[in-house]
């Protein structure tokens, strides 16, 4: 295990902007169970292609947003990046190691460098443990500290990092004694305990009130800027992604349809789906009425996605004979801006 540990130890020579995670053609398929009579018909069992061939690179010290509707595969992708679910196929190069191939014991070592913040701060914490136990748990699991007392200095440091001060006031509290925003900050502190270089945050603010979302989002931003922690921010809320992310990827039905800087995606989106998604995000301004400009229909069943471009049954710019025949590749339109749409190739 020691040898493996060396393989995934953070490289001190890595500079901001270098690629920290290089994902190539990542796939995660779930087998679908059929009933007894359906299975008599024979043929292969259907599979749900939650993530179906996604390639991207995440650079050190950035906040990378992944945006999409529910069911587009963004949470599955997040879990796969951390190996909480095993990928079906593809490569994930994290600081020189293809982590897609790592076994169980090696993955445990890997977790020192990659951590996760879960969506629901009400469910992701044991209600019977107090803050010091919750935050020190990763340290104890990884044998960095043998008990809570030994982990205490690090725990205090982490709580300070997430601005839970005065620290002494919070250290002995139980989750029910904290507000939603405070709980989510404890979740961030827990993720920070092992001093990872890479954190995946899966909808960290969707359960919080609007007035306190800023707390957690700004915290993520500060940690990223000051400590150089790389974040992947999974969300369905394009408005917050626009304000905190450096780059944003838009997913639809297990595929990435557009990727670019936050300004490119919001201000200069090229894919019809991204444009529809941006139009559907309401603006809190009563002078700008925008009801009525939405895509028809709903996300199709990912077990049997449409042929060709997956958006074509809903796309306002559908071209018969092109979009329903071949699936568009994600191509670079200009440096750092990739789009998967036939419309752009033809122009």
């Amino acid at each position, binding site marked *: 295990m020691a040898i493996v540990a060396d393989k995934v130890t953070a490289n001190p020579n890595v500079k901001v902007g270098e690629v920290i995670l290089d994902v190539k053609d990542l796939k995660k398929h779930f087998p679908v169970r059929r009933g007894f009579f359906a299975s008599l018909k024979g043929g292969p069992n259907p599979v749900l292609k939650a993530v179906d061939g996604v390639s991207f690179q995440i650079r050190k010290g950035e906040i990378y947003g992944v945006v999409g509707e529910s069911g587009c595969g963004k949470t599955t992708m997040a879990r796969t990046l951390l190996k909480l679910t095993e990928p079906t196929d593809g490569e994930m190069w994290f600081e020189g190691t293809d982590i897609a191939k790592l076994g169980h014991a090696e993955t445990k070592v890997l977790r020192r460098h990659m951590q996760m913040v879960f969506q629901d701060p009400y469910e992701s914490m044991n209600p019977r443990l107090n803050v010091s136990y919750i935050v020190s748990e990763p340290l104890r699991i990884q044998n960095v500290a043998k008990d809570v007392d030994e982990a205490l200095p690090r725990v205090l440091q982490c709580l300070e990092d997430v601005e839970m001060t005065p620290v002494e006031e919070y250290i002995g509290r139980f989750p029910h004694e904290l507000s939603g925003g405070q709980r989510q900050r404890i979740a961030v502190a827990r993720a920070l305990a092992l001093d990872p270089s890479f954190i995946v945050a899966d909808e960290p603010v969707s359960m919080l009130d609007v*007035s306190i979302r800023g707390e957690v989002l700004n915290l993520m931003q500060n940690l990223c800027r000051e400590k150089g922690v790389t974040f992947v921010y999974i969300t369905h809320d394009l408005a917050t992604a626009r304000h905190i992310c450096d780059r944003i990827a838009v997913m639809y039905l297990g595929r990435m349809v557009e990727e670019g800087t936050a300004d490119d995606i919001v201000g200069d989106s090229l894919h019809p789906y991204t444009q529809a998604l941006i139009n559907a995000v309401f603006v809190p301004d009563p002078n700008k009425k925008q009801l009525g400009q939405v895509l028809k229909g709903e996300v199709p069943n990912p077990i049997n996605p449409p042929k060709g471009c997956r958006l074509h049954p809903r796309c306002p710019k559908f071209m018969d004979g092109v979009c329903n025949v071949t699936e568009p590749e994600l191509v670079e339109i200009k440096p750092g801006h990739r789009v998967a749409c036939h419309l752009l190739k033809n122009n």
Partner: protein
Amino acid sequence: MAMLEVKDLTMYYKTLRGYVKAVDSVSFELEKGKALGLAGESGCGKSSMATTVLRLLPSNGNIMGGSVKMDGKELVSLSEEDFRKEIRWKRMSMVFQGAMNALNPVHRIGDQIMEAILAHENVSKQAAKDRMLNLLDMVGINPKRYNEYPHEFSGGMKQRVVIAMALACNPDIIIADEPTTALDVMVQAQVLTAMEGLRKKMGLGMILITHDLAVIAQTCDDVAIMYGGKIVEYGSAKDIYLKPRHPYTMGLVKAFPNIAAEKQKVRSIPGSPPNLLSPPEGCRFNPRCPMATDKCRTEEPPLVKSQKGEQKVACHRESEIEEGVDIWQ
């Protein structure tokens, strides 16, 4: 005269530890065909407000005072029997939060809508069925699907079924409690577009309860901002969004990320909402307010017409806040 007039309505939940002051002397009006948005953080009493007006309170919810008048008729003193027969669903209905749970999973959706019609009106089954098919068509669901079960519909379609159910008896007012909170942005836009169309076509009055300021900005004429069981600012949507006068509203509007704005830090309001078992003395917002003075900590501000704007505001220091000054900086 407004169609619905709510005046000084007060509702407390009785608990073992005392009264939870969920709705505390709240007043507002709703004109025919208009939409009012009730906005606030979770736990500010906005859903309790809705259930109080429709008298769907749990057994520990007590209306302590105030009045609810519909076309001049007092509803608070009406007997439960009369309220059920004359008002609920016939004049005023509700779209519940989370359509996933508002529908019965073991009944066909058509039967569930028909049940609402048959329970309230003395019509034949065939007439009820015709109206049910018509309702499904109105909310944009293929009427042929009336004999399907809820699990065969997606979230957005289930929400439309719940809306159809609320419209079953041709009410004058519908109260929509977070109708789109559980839905995706795209589906949310579809459902709200459908609701807006129906409202215009049928001349419905609507009370929309949500924490999403953007949804209210897109659909409502008037807005009431609630904090700690009270309305702190009340006026037209344009006044409140563009020229807010209460410190809480200012913070809330700023905290709401606007995709159309320049890239900026996401704001937040420090602190957390008050515990309504023992709300703070004086102005309930004073522990979180950057402008709080001793007066704010002892004396409760009344909701009065703003001195610098058109809306009503409950703040002692409202007249001191210059327009355009960012007090949260």
